[in-house]
């Protein structure tokens, strides 16, 4: 396994409360969600929707299903857990998750994956 690498992907002012933005990482596109009121305000998962097969997850609606924080894919509406990346409708499908932290004005993602080009399928 490669080392955890912290990289700055956005500034605080880029975040949209209760919603997501897409960022580019060496491990491919990631979706970064900001829930100001919650215990854990920042979540990051893959931006690529493995069911709709497009980079769209940051553009989904954020919410909770039976207490689990999720984003609904804007393409075919499946829900993905923000903390585990698991798809709620299909247990065989999940997306990668990333550790996130705030450092002053910078938002950083912990990337563990080796350097890859192209999409994060």
């Amino acid at each position, binding site marked *: 396994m490669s080392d955890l690498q912290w990289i700055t992907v956005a500034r605080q002012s*880029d975040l949209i409360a209760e919603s997501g933005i*897409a960022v*580019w990482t060496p491990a491919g596109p990631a979706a970064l969600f900001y829930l100001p009121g919650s215990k854990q305000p920042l979540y990051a998962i893959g931006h690529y929707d493995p069911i709709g097969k497009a980079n769209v997850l940051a553009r989904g609606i954020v919410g909770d299903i039976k207490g689990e924080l999720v984003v609904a894919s804007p393409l075919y509406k499946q829900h993905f857990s923000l903390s585990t990346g698991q798809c709620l409708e299909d247990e065989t499908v999940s997306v990668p998750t990333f550790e996130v932290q705030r450092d002053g004005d910078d938002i950083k993602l912990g990337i563990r994956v080796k350097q890859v080009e192209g999409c994060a399928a």
Partner: protein
Amino acid sequence: MAKKNLIVIGNGMVGHHFLEQFADTPAAADYTIHVFGEEPLIAYDRVHLSEYFGGSTHADLAMGTADQYTEKQIQLHLDEQVTDIDRDQREVITPKGRYRYDAVVLATGSYPFVPPIQGNDQPHCLVYRTLADLDAIRASSEGVKRGVVVGGGLLGLEAANALKCLGLEAHVVEFAPRLMPVQLDSDGGTLLRRKIEELGVQVHTEKATTEIVAGDEHRLRMNFSDESHLEADLIVFSAGIRPQDTLARSCGLEIGERGGIVIDDYCTTSDPQIFAIGECALWSNRIFGLVAPGYTMARTASARLNQDTEASFVGADMSTKLKLLGVDVGSIGDAHASTPGARNIRFNDEQAGTYGRLVISEDGKKLLGAILVGDNGPYDTLLQYALNGIDLPANPEVLILPASEGGAPTLGPDALPETASICSCHNVTKGDICCAIDAGCTDLGAVKSQTKASTGCGGCSALLKNVVDAELEKRGVEVSKDICEHFAYSRQELFHLVKVNGIRTFHSLIEQYGKGHGCDICKPTVGSILATCWNEHIMATDHVPLQDTNDTFMANMQKNGTYSIVPRVPGGEITPDKLIVLGEVAKEYNLYTKITGGQRIDLFGATLSELPEIWEKLIAAGFETGHAYGKSLRTVKSCVGSTWCRYGVQDSVGMAIRLEDRYKGLRSPHKIKFAVSGCTRECAEAQSKDIGVIATDKGWNLYVCGNGGMRPRHADLFATDLNDEQLISAIDRVLMFYVRTADRLQRTSVWMENMEGGLDYLKDVVLNDSLGIGEELEQHMASIIGTYQCEWKSTVEDPEKRKRFREFVNDERKDPVQHWVEERGQRRPAPKAETETA
């Protein structure tokens, strides 16, 4: 413990269905199952037999495969006729051997009846029942001209169609004075005959064939009792069916007077070890010559073998709906009015070529039967009235009158028959949904995961919800109107809470009246309510997280994550200069262009970051957003109207533009579509719209609550000869009342159908102001119109809002997973397979 032996005799439609049903039940484990079929081919769909001449093969028609049988451990013996049953030894006998049994299911079907006419056994005298029969007909038809079918019933007409498909000149000879004597009356039969003759099939009624001899010009000659004759190269007998009960007779089971193996309500014959199902079985002195009753018998026998005494066969409805040679024919219940005191309503439109007859009970309340020829449109509704004994409306004739005369009342979800397809993606019928509910599903979610309904394109979700709610309510389950787990309120209740308490954000609503974070159901709903109530910009910070991506980015997301752009073209009228701008912009950004069904132009394939740039150019050229993404007014279609058209009586384009400008941007429970036609020819198709306006000599006729889409519905005539101001005030009120009281994702049609009192109530509220809210509705509409802003205009002008359109906030690169191919001179998304390997 040694397994018992179950033997199924007959591998036809019903026998196959039995195996399918039984193999998955617990009792199947106790048996070794053998099935014997006399035909050399595995069970196939006889109902669609005629498609064999249209190019289908046995494989297309087959109902299962040998592998599937093997998988279910069923031993299949094809081309092996059972010749006897030895009930003392409990053995089934075939030319290949003897097989011990503990239980037998007879599913031997029926055989075509060939009338005892002298000469009926020569070559080229054939029948129409099996694939082998069809091969024989095909062989016989080679190089000859004329085929004659004896029998003008349902199967005879099918056979005639088949002869036509083979390129023969087709004739039908019927003994009775009309076609389909069992299902139709004389007017219906006459019309059907006319239509069929128009299609080139010659019909000869009241002809009794006395002998078949050699012909002069054709191979054979049929002599009739009235001294006339008809020559033919081949003759197909289709004069009815007889139950195949030979085996049952020879082993001494009880047989009906006119044939058929006698069964009780559990499909048991006079020998409790032997069941009979399908067309060979005689229940209560009746044979059922349709598949559906046979399938019910199959399920009953299977349940019985599982010691389930609840299941029983108690007869079946023999109503039929067919397309014969392309002509609609429907026959329901007591079509011949044989019930004492029955009364008739007939509507015979020789001009349009449609015939409808209602048979009504003496007290005028119930529908006993019906006949339809030429148009089966009302069939489902009529069947529902007849089967469920629903009280008829005061003026039942509207049920068969052409829809334009006020429109036939429909019945909401209950009007749909069990066989109605609810979800076409997953082929789920209303019956499947009822089964799922009966099997324990108690809410929409459970029905969805059980049947898969509404998990494809999602287009059926509103209809599915209606059906599920109605069915649950029928079973006494209290249906939660809560919109989701976060709010214990319906959309209408939320609307009131927002309005009455002046709530302006989702956050304060959920804090006061809900729980959790919300979800993709309640957020957009509340977003839409807030927009209707306060009409703030949908891109306002508080509202952004509430919207579906289409609303957030004010464009429709496409399958590859790009977006489409649809500028408003009010009334479909556009200047050459504007057309040029659209062309130029499309060219610059390499957008695929297409004329939509709503009289405007859609530009596809823009990336997120290109959207504001493109809109900047469009707005500079005078375009506005077309709200193609919103639950709001889409288009007002128009025809060219009195300005150019020689028939136009009013300026339909002018009115369409006025209406489109007035209601653009109005947020509503679902999308709203309008159309305005300049005269009664109705070129704008206004009667298929939520709001339809048709010009008259004196003003405008207003139609409401029409729908295209999944479940089309003609709009209802609402008011006549209105002047411009009256028209607009009526539309203001209808729309505002809809926006306030409809459920989430409910089109106006469903809203009205679900409203107690329906159209009359709506008229009362809008035209007579029965609730005294007319003024208020109009004022509310006026305030929304007053605060309209093109949301794209304010977005491109605001750098903060534009930031939302960056593909990646930290990188300028384009989305790496978009792949394109070129087709017909434009680019489009590459098919999935290519994308995946790319």
